[in-house]
């Protein structure tokens, strides 16, 4: 379907802080025969919160350079972090919307002999899984179905919103992750705070941890065995965040937080070490014991 090769855009957090996510992506997508072409000229996307807050024109310039690299290499980009997805997609959108701005940014890129045209498609890996691979092939790759495992999905914000730019799924009634989780044999469960933000972008000592607390109260009430997500920033809010909640509020949750490709990797029969599940703060043994 998609003739262009796909280049993974790893960003910063995944390769440096959570390489287990990268390992799980490479392994599970390899099992599904999604060919990935690595490009080592990318930089930070850059981050859509702080870097953008300081200077949006610089933010656009760095994003446009990354996109121009993909154009030169003639590849489509596959992101694995919702932040990278947000930055690269929004930059494409803004530069398509505003010709004058695009030229302003291109004047910066001209300094390094590059030019941004807007011909590269950027998709989060869950879109590649849904649209190129398809749920059926994912299901066929499963050798160890996660039967009876209840997964509380955390969508995070930037995969879905704004739908004017992201157009991945309905922002209020998304189901892309439900379908992908079901393909592993697990059962996605709904809960009150399913679409709440992880809070990481808020500069406050109080608010983000309150949000994490409310999300865990909601998913534990719903009886989840684990949380499934697709963004390293959300992951840090919830894996480490759970421990912070325990410390601050004396409320102990032990709900493993699992990146989607790790979940898929378990179902495909990869080992704990291959998926780096031993690196999580909140141990995933409870889940593994039930499927292995």
């Amino acid at each position, binding site marked *: 379907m998609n003739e262009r090769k796909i280049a993974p855009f790893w960003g*910063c957090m995944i390769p440096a802080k959570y*390489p287990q996510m990268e390992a799980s992506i490479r392994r599970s997508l390899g099992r599904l025969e999604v060919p990935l072409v690595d490009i080592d000229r990318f930089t930070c996307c850059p981050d859509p919160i702080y870097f953008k*807050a300081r200077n949006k024109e*610089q933010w656009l310039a760095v994003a446009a350079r990354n996109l121009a690299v993909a154009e030169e290499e003639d590849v489509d980009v596959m992101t694995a972090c919702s932040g990278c997805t947000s930055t690269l997609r929004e930059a494409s959108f803004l530069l398509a919307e505003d010709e004058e701005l695009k030229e302003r940014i*291109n004047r910066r890129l001209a*300094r*390094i*002999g590059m030019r941004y045209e807007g011909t590269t498609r950027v998709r989060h890996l869950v879109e590649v899984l849904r649209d190129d691979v398809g749920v059926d092939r994912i299901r066929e790759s499963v050798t160890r179905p996660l039967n009876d495992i209840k997964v509380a999905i955390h969508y995070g914000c930037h995969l879905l919103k704004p739908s004017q730019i992201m157009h991945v799924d309905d922002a209020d009634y998304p189901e892309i992750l439900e379908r992908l989780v079901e393909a592993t044999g697990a059962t996605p469960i709904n809960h009150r705070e399913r679409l709440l933000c992880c809070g990481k972008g808020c500069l406050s000592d109080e608010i983000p941890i309150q949000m994490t607390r409310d999300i865990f109260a909601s998913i534990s009430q719903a009886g989840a065995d684990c949380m499934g997500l697709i963004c390293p920033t959300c992951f840090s809010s919830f894996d480490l965040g759970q421990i912070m909640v325990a410390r601050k509020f004396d409320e102990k949750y032990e709900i493993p937080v699992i990146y989607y490709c790790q979940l898929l990797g378990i179902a495909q029969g990869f080992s704990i070490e*291959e998926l780096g599940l031993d690196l999580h703060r909140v141990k995933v043994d409870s889940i593994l014991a039930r499927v292995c």
Partner: protein
Amino acid sequence: MGSKIAFTFREQLDGTIGGDHHNYCLQCGACVAGCPAARYSEDFNPRTILLKTLLGQEEELIGADSVIWLCTNCYTCYERCPQDVRPIEVIIALKNMAAERGVLPDEVNKFAEMISSRGHSAVLSESVNRRREKLGLDPIPRVPVEELTAILADPEEGEVPSGGGAGEVLEPLGSKAGSQEGPGKVRPEKRAGVEKKPSKKASGGKASAKKVGRKKPRTTKRSNR
């Protein structure tokens, strides 16, 4: 609320990327209901922030005590707004204006500076690569930070334009061929079947683009107004 509208401030906001959409706000409040920052803080309300932009209340919006930094960047307001105000982007434009003034929270500045100077927002240490190795992953590639330095520099007066319309292809301005390869690191050949245009490869960057980013230091000034 103040009695006079400060149009000068609004014009400055119009001139900041994403700021001009504040003009479309009709104060309907659709952005408030799903806003997590409003849910968790009584001080924060995207509609009120937009009202202040319409009135041009500069100090409240971009002064040291502004609530704009409580926004979680969740984009719900953008999703809900019927007027295409894109409230979050107006808030980001306000943050850019605050940064211009040097009123930027320290953590924001530090994080952004890390990206400007290293091209990466995470610390890349040996232990990171050891952990990667255990997972069967290659080391993290070197980041072409000198290219970033060049594109982050403030534009010069009369800077050579990018070649504008008609898809004209520009020659690189500098001439240090291959300078973006790291020491001892040769970029692997591009995958088979893809012709790489030879001339588009970066050169050393524009001679005049010597400094990263910013002229003035943008440290936090959190003194009271």
